[in-house]
């Protein structure tokens, strides 16, 4: 089949036109604007660049964005797997409703999610009031950021696991059961390894999204310097001071982190496909 496709010639019309427009539009909207980050960082020189991205406040913001996104992605991995499992395997009333609502974090504007969680967990909010009695503070703390990022990343995990779980052949599980495996053993030794690539993909997507997330976080974070300032907010405040070079330096590091995450993910997926075929 692949051999046949390679020999196949391009006979349909419109290649030049469609390709030309695609490359033009891609360059105008994405490539040229993104390259501005490099063009604004390069004239800085090496030392001021290092100085800008290793300032204590900037380092603290990287650390915070990285760790909160990681915690949120781990939590999403667990809850996402559980939700996908429940939605694929069980039958219960309202299941389709839940399934549809999984996409809500994709569709809901981030700012709305932000003010919702900030109000929900404020000391007088529906959840914040109870938690305050136990001295748990969510708002103005890294925990609050994690809460917002869990919400944002949740659908990534569910939507990557669901199709894989749907396609798991029943025979595999039956075979395991015939050979005397318990349900839990079947899940741990057969299903989980099978689902792992999807789980990894979903949580990496959630993680990458979490590092850059802005709208839902700033309302709940409180934005205290050194404590709850996320990396995108650092870019924002440098921009407000017209420190364009500094802003692009911080942005460059953030971009490199997200790009390398996604490249790593591509590599893992390719390796996984080779394993299976």
């Amino acid at each position: 089949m692949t051999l046949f496709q390679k020999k196949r010639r391009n006979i349909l019309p419109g290649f030049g036109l469609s390709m030309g427009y695609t490359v033009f539009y891609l360059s105008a909207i994405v490539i040229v604007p993104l390259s501005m980050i490099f063009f604004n960082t390069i004239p800085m020189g090496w030392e001021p660049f290092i100085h800008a991205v290793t300032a204590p406040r900037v380092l603290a913001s990287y650390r915070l964005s990285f760790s909160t996104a990681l915690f949120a992605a781990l939590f999403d991995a667990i809850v996402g797997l559980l939700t996908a499992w429940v939605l694929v395997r069980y039958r219960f009333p309202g299941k389709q409703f839940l399934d549809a609502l999984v996409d809500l974090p994709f569709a809901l504007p981030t700012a709305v999610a932000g003010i919702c969680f900030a109000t929900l967990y404020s000391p007088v909010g529906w959840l914040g009031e109870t938690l305050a009695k136990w001295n748990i503070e969510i708002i103005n703390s890294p925990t609050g950021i994690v809460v917002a990022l869990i919400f944002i990343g949740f659908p990534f995990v569910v939507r990557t696991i669901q199709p894989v779980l749907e396609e798991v052949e029943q025979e595999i599980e039956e075979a395991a059961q015939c050979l005397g495996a318990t349900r839990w053993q079947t899940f741990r030794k057969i299903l989980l390894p099978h689902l792992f690539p999807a789980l990894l993909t979903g949580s990496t997507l959630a993680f990458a999204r979490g590092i850059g997330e802005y709208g839902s976080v700033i309302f709940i974070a409180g934005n205290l310097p050194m404590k709850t300032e996320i990396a995108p907010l650092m870019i924002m405040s440098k921009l407000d001071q017209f420190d364009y070079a500094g802003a692009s330096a911080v942005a460059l590091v953030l971009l490199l982190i997200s790009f390398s995450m996604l490249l790593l993910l591509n590599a893992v997926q390719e390796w996984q496909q080779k394993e299976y075929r």
Partner: protein
Amino acid sequence: MQKPQTPESAPIVKKRISDPLPVQIVLIGVTLLFFTGFIFLPLGLVFAQAFSKGWEYYLESIREPYALEAVKLTLTTVAIVVPLNAFFGVTAAWAITKFNFKGKATLKTLLDLPFAVSPVIAGLIFVLLVGSRTPFGSWLGEQGIKIIFSTPGIVIATLFVTFPFVARELIPLMEAQGRDEEEAALTLGARGWQIFGKITLPNIRWGLLYGMILCSARSIGEFGAVSVVSGHIRGQTNTIPLHVEILYSEYNFAASFAVASILVFLALLTVGVKVTLEKQFQKNSFHHQELP
């Protein structure tokens, strides 16, 4: 007409292995708990807060001039962004799925680039490109063209953020459909536009529609990127999400959530449309399978 291969019509219905009932109940319970905390409560909160000062205050908040200006700006943005990105999505999908060429994988990766970029960076790059302190921006300023802190800036930043949505929906769809139908039309003497209009477009219409809906949802809701390039001038460069933010930071929670409730309503609508279109998809692919 029924074929005995589908599991529904098979003579012996196999019983799917499942978990014991108590396990099921516990797992469903935990899932529901998560949904309550992270989906239902926030949704309920929006409406409880929005109506906390009564029905009249709610209507007043969403009919107030600044709110209406924000709605107008958001709609203008959507009306420009969605057709441009939809046209691009169709063109890019045509180029990628109907031809073989070198560098296809790289091109596909580049299309997804905006997804890997933080919204704040998406705003930043346009400030760096056409802001008033850059050479190009100051030249534009001399010509009397203002981009950053005005509507064009908001439109461009939104174009960037929603860039991949339509292409991403169409490429897998058109890859799965292949190019046999188009090539058959070509041999029968159809011209390029005829092939596209009579074969390709009807085949991809639901995917295109869905991509455009995702694109509009994101255009309406985009906050970070727009926040960087907008300048937050009330009545001029405030989109709906920015208006929500301003009201919130002024502690006018009831009005803020009232305006936010419009966005929640649109988000729920998007989710609903998605479910409907997916059902349509399944029906369509079923038809395709039945044909031969």
